């Protein structure tokens, strides 16, 4: 079953790259939902011989929270805003892909020098999760729209989770749940803030969409 794990890792990185190159917000959220779903599948393939209740729980919770609830909230948050396109990215889409590729290569190169103790499920886990983290970070840094930044943050978290789920089981399941819950709450609060900001803008001057902090809400 190792090969399934490999496939999942590759798919996750690939989906991150797609988000990076996308310019429609709605599509980005959809791709993210897909990515989280794939991530949720991972625990089921991890211990192929004996799937523990722990694996099932983590998988299911991930799917429910990240693949369903979070996208829903995000859609809610941007319901007033034009969903069509990302405004004025700091780095163009073409250049983003090329940078993304470079970042992936870099992550793989760095992973060469990191040796994970014990028996990892797949040697692709570390480089792929690092790539995802970095791509998520890139999205946060290069995109100016608030929702895309949230997405970038979520992808970053996905990268960390890819790493966490596949590598060890030292973390008690309750704490894993806590981490997931935290992330969910984070998205929830961010969405509310984005919503509030939009309302404020509408209340005051409809013409000013660009805040003085560089984001577009």
């Amino acid at each position, binding site marked *: 079953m190792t090969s399934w794990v490999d496939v999942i890792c590759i798919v996750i990185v690939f989906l991150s790259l797609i988000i990076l190159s996308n310019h429609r917000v709605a599509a980005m959220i959809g791709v993210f939902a897909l990515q989280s779903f794939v991530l949720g599948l991972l625990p089921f393939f991890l211990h192929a011989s004996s799937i523990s209740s722990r694996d099932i729980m983590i998988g299911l919770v991930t799917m429910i929270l990240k693949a369903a609830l979070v996208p829903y909230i995000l859609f809610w948050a941007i319901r007033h805003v034009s969903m069509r396109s990302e405004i004025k990215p700091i780095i163009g889409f073409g250049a983003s892909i090329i940078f993304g590729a470079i970042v992936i290569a870099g992550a793989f190169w760095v992973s060469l020098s990191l040796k994970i103790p014990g028996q990892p499920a797949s040697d692709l886990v570390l480089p792929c999760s690092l790539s995802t983290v970095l791509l998520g970070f890139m999205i946060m840094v290069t995109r100016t729209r608030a929702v895309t930044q949230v997405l970038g*943050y979520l992808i970053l*978290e996905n990268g960390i989770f890819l790493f966490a789920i596949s590598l060890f089981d*030292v973390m008690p399941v309750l*704490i894993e749940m*806590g981490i997931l819950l935290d992330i969910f709450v*984070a998205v929830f609060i*961010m969405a509310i*803030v984005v919503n509030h900001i939009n309302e404020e*803008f509408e209340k005051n001057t409809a013409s000013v969409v660009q805040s003085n*902090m560089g984001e577009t809400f």
Partner: protein
Amino acid sequence: MLTILILMPFLCALGVLLPVSKYFRLKLFGAVSLAHSLFVASFWKEFPPSEYHGFLVLDSLGLILLSIISFLFLSVSIFMIGYFKHELGRNRVFVTCLFLLLSMMTLVAVSYHFGLLWVAIEATTLFSAPLISFHRSQQSLQATWRYLLICSVGIALALMGTFFLAIAAHDVHTLLLPALLKGAPLLSVNWLKLSIIFFIVGYGCKMGLAPTHSWKPEAYGQAPGMVAVLMAGALTQCSFLALLRIAQICNKTGLTDFFSSILILSGVLSLIVPAMFILGERNIKRAFAYSSIEHMGLLVLGLGLGTVGLFGALFHMINNALAKVVMFLTAGSLAQKYGSASADEIRGVIHIYPLTGVFLIAALLAGTGMFPFATFHSELLILNAAIISKHYLMAAVGVVCLGLMFIGIGKIILNVIHGQPKEPLLAKKENIYMNVAIAMAGILLISIGLWMPSPLEKLLHNAAALIVSV
């Protein structure tokens, strides 16, 4: 005991979500804070037993933080009674978040598992965010946004650090602190180093260490005074507790130098950066935010320097928290009175509000570490540590930066205190609750500065001994 302490505010949070009266929420909050403080006070006599298989343990380090949290919430709850007399808005979300914050901070102080610690700290970040945007103005919402984004990324890095620590502890099979300390020789040094770096950057971001401090001036500038108090006094120090926990592991594994050098770098940067910005600042709260960055720098500097510095850092945790109460509550009450915390809008405070003027003076002196405020002693201890460890240049840089900070803050505060009074928005009456809250902290800070009670000294010594085991 500990569970009660965590659950009590949590349940109350759910309770105040119900449509009850505005004043009932405040009273409940006050009562819970008081109960919380009484519990914590009882822990000074005897530590409570550990709970959940050693996941929740209160040790000396935790007790320091817990006492700070408890005191801060108590004074904030008193202050709020006065504050909400003049606020028209609702306080449902606000008080709920405060309860949740109290609950989560308590969890931070008592969690003995690195994963749990992360969960709790992340939760504090999240629950403090709605507090910042209490006034719902554009600026405050944007400040909240920046705070959320930057701290989330930072905390995400800390999560990575936690996982790296887990890899390093592959042979220990747990992230419980005592097990890690016991199994220190089994830890993989390279992964541990990696995790330390991620921890320092991640939690440092939350503490507001330069260069990851950028959320601070915005957030503190916009948050209501009492929220800024909780953030500057308790929230940031929660992250510092995480660093202290890591320091425990580092000292066991012989990575002290590695750890210290990074901390010292961060500390020095955190001294230099606010000193560069402060002279151009005109807003009281933002100036205090820079001061907070500086104090965080002092904390990590003390931790990095070890020996006397460590003692100083632990002492400074307490002093910093008390000083922040004085500083931000005063700034908050001024901001409410004048509708702005900009130094250009306020003049002659001491003539209109004599007591607030005195508090403002106290805020200046406490914030910049002048005798008889206890911050004086802790700053001295940290400077002394720099000299003892022969970091002369660093001591000199630190002194210059502290001097610049003093000039910057002094320029703002003294301008506000003196001069021909400007008419405030509110009536010329001071609110007793607000003043009591500030005076409590101020008097406590002065009395510690004049005479350090021996239980406190013992506690600090025990806490220091936890980190540098003799």
